[in-house]
């Protein structure tokens, strides 16, 4: 039968099992939107910005393991996806991004809203293609989904010219894919597995280093079995965190520039490093020539190009983490390394993580409260200190998930990704931790969350600085806080540093913004927010809203302006109540603004260019 391209598009989504589509309209996709109007069973999510859209699709994909699907118009719609495509690419998130394109006869003519999105994204996605012929449409879409989710997952861009969408053609949608240049490896080379195990069996001080690949493969349980079988200490990257429960006796902690003492020391002293699904990114290696320099290195990765790129590997195993771990479990045996494991644990106990320098409401205390309060929880972070603290202090087991932009480190990721995660997991609480800087990068998605009636818990760690950068300025740039204060008013602006007039929130021009919060109306936490009517505060939440904002924006008011709930927390005693209110919200996002110590730092930290064992502990 002959159908229009747009109808085939809808059919393709159905065949691929897509029931949530993140979409923003425009001239070059209006036909597709029209076709979606009648497409029952496919929920179309309309965020407020295409960047928010793609991070939402990303959060959906990471938290469900399904492919996240985006649809945007050509030109500015497409270019607004760029950061999100790169974000997903770095963290191996399966996305299919459909971009509208001007009709084929106008391509190359600088037509209105024409951009070469395939050219722009070529180096930041797994695959990008423009459909140039209606007869290829079904095949291209089928292949796009296959490429996105198979092998090392990643984002795929499919550019759809308007005339192709409108053209009539076959309604066939292929059942199978065969791409001659793309055959993701599936098997495990048993010879390599045996080589790995023979090295391991001679080890005296072996450690596991686990990266995001294990979580992507859903191999946490198998990995935990392997760890228990061998008795080796386990260290993770931030992307690998949660592969083994964080309270497991074999779990030591995160590696890297903000890794903990025991983890970094163990890497520096181990004699066999058994790494699975990590790229040895510079954030984890520290000075590369010193990295694990006593160790023989075994590396399992699905991407051959990740092996021996940064670190020369002794035994490479190109395979999916789960498949490989299952194979290894068949052949591995217990190792006599309990003394070593005990020693590493001892280092951890002697040097626990902890914000010793600070009192009161520290990020550590807030995150520990979160640990106490929720059993099953998806946590999304933004980027900056908030992310580091979260990845340090958050407790995780296999049933909980942590979504964070690890590879690209994209500020503005948190809120939209939390929206996607909630849409994909309506029954699990979703909590986002972000900084005041990152929160403002995609704050417009508050409106999306409100319209979708999503009870997200949004924790903003407000230090009124671009904290992560400020910490570097404090530690490595002589305290010169070059343009990292988010509070300083122009009339007060100087180029001050730590301890000067301009540091901190104290010197913000309070008069200009210090509006009393008394009398602010906030909604009942459980009332439906779509009615438009303003309801009055419960006494509990009203009690929580106090104090004057000393900076901009006033996040509480901002939340309220979106018809969400805003709570400000200034002391540790208020944390419980705020989290209680937030966790009871049924259909309204709750933003909790935590006013934290402006100059709190993340420790330990390995200064750039230093080896991992030369970290600054506090």
């Amino acid at each position, binding site marked *: 039968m002959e159908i229009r391209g747009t109808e085939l598009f809808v059919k393709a989504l159905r065949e691929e099992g897509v029931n949530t589509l993140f979409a923003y309209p425009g001239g070059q996709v209006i036909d597709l939107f029209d076709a979606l109007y009648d497409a029952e069973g496919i929920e179309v999510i309309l965020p407020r910005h295409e960047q928010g859209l793609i991070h939402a699709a990303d959060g959906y994909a990471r938290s469900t393991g399904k492919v996240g699907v985006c649809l945007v118009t050509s030109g500015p719609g497409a270019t607004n996806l760029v950061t999100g495509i790169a974000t997903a690419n770095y963290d191996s998130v399966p996305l299919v991004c459909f971009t509208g394109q001007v009709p084929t006869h106008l391509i190359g003519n600088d037509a209105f809203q024409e951009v070469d999105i*395939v*050219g722009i994204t*070529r*180096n930041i996605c*797994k*695959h990008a*293609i*423009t459909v*140039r012929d209606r007869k290829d449409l079904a095949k291209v879409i089928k292949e796009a989904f296959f*490429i996105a989710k198979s092998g090392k997952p990643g984002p795929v861009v499919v550019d759809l010219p308007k005339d192709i969408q409108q053209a009539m053609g076959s309604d066939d949608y292929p059942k199978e894919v065969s*791409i*001659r*240049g*793309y055959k993701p490896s599936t098997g495990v080379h048993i010879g390599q597995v045996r080589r790995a195990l023979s090295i391991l069996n001679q080890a005296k001080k072996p450690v596991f280093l686990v990266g995001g690949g294990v979580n992507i493969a859903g191999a946490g349980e198998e990995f935990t079995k392997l760890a228990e079988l061998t008795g080796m200490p386990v260290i993770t990257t931030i992307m690998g965190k949660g592969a083994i429960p964080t309270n497991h006796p074999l779990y030591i902690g995160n590696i890297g520039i903000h890794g903990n003492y025991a983890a970094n020391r163990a890497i520096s002293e181990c004699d066999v490093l058994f790494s699975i699904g990590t790229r040895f990114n510079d954030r984890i290696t520290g000075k590369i020539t010193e990295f694990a*320099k*006593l*160790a*023989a*290195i075994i590396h399992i990765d699905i*991407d*051959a*190009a990740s*092996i*021996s*790129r940064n*670190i*020369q*590997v*002794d035994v490479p195993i190109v395979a999916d983490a789960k498949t490989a771990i299952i194979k290894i479990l068949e052949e591995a045996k217990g190792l006599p390394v309990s003394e070593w494991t005990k020693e590493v644990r001892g280092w951890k106990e002697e040097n626990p993580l902890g914000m010793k320098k600070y009192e009161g409401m520290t990020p550590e205390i807030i995150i520990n409260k979160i640990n106490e309060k929720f059993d099953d929880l998806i946590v999304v972070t933004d980027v900056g200190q908030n992310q580091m603290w979260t990845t340090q202090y958050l407790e995780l087991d296999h049933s909980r998930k942590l979504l964070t932009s690890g590879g690209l480190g994209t500020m503005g990721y948190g809120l939209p990704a939390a929206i996607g995660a909630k849409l994909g997991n309506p029954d699990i609480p979703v909590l986002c931790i972000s900084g005041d800087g990152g929160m403002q990068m995609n704050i417009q998605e508050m409106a999306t969350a409100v319209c979708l009636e999503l009870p997200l818990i949004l924790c903003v760690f407000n230090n009124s600085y671009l904290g992560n950068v400020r910490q570097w300025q404090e530690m490595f740039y002589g305290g010169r806080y070059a343009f990292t204060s988010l509070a300083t008013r122009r009339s007060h602006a100087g180029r001050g540093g730590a301890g000067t007039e301009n540091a901190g929130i104290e010197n913000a021009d309070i008069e200009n913004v210090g509006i009393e919060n008394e009398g602010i109306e906030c909604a009942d936490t459980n009332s439906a927010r779509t009615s438009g009517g303003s309801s009055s505060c419960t006494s509990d939440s009203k009690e929580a809203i106090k104090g004057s904002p000393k900076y901009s924006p006033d996040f509480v008011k901002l939340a309220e302006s979106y018809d969400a709930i805003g709570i400000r927390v200034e002391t540790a005693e208020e944390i419980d109540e705020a989290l209680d209110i937030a966790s009871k919200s049924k259909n309204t996002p709750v933003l909790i603004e935590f006013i934290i110590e402006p100059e709190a730092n993340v420790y330990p930290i390995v200064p750039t260019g230093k080896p991992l064992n030369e970290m600054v502990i506090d």
Partner: protein
Amino acid sequence: MGKVIENIIKKRWISLYVENEIGVLAKISGLFSGKSYNMDSLTVGETEDETISRMTISVTSDESTFEQIKKQLNRCVEVIKVVDFTDIPIHMKEILFVKINSLKDSEKEEVFSISKIYGLAVIDCDRSTLLLECVQTESKNNAIIKLFQNSFPNRIEVVKGGSVAIEAISVADR
């Protein structure tokens, strides 16, 4: 520890089978620039199968970078096959045009005799200009250019194509 690898910087060759589609050349060359790999030459043309193009790429690099280049190329969906030509017998040729201007008659004679020795063809001329065509290995062509440059400084014009290469049947030289 780590494996000891040969890290000699030398000229290395790749033969690449790719989909004959719009954007593939840009993708391959973009990969080299994006990853900061230095490419010496790249030629591309259709094969006996019109849906497949074959590229010959030469780079000067160390072993580990070269390994990465091959792996990165292999990752591209449009790349059907990567063949390392570095250490196997191949036939390799590069096209070269040399135009020599303002030649006196005696100099023309000299050019003709050089051409004979090096197997160059004189394919066009006027009273004082000769155009030579040469299909040789890259290194031979470079030697020829040098020779003409020394003999006729500032009077030569050179156009080179990139190299193309194919596996040898018996023996071959580079």
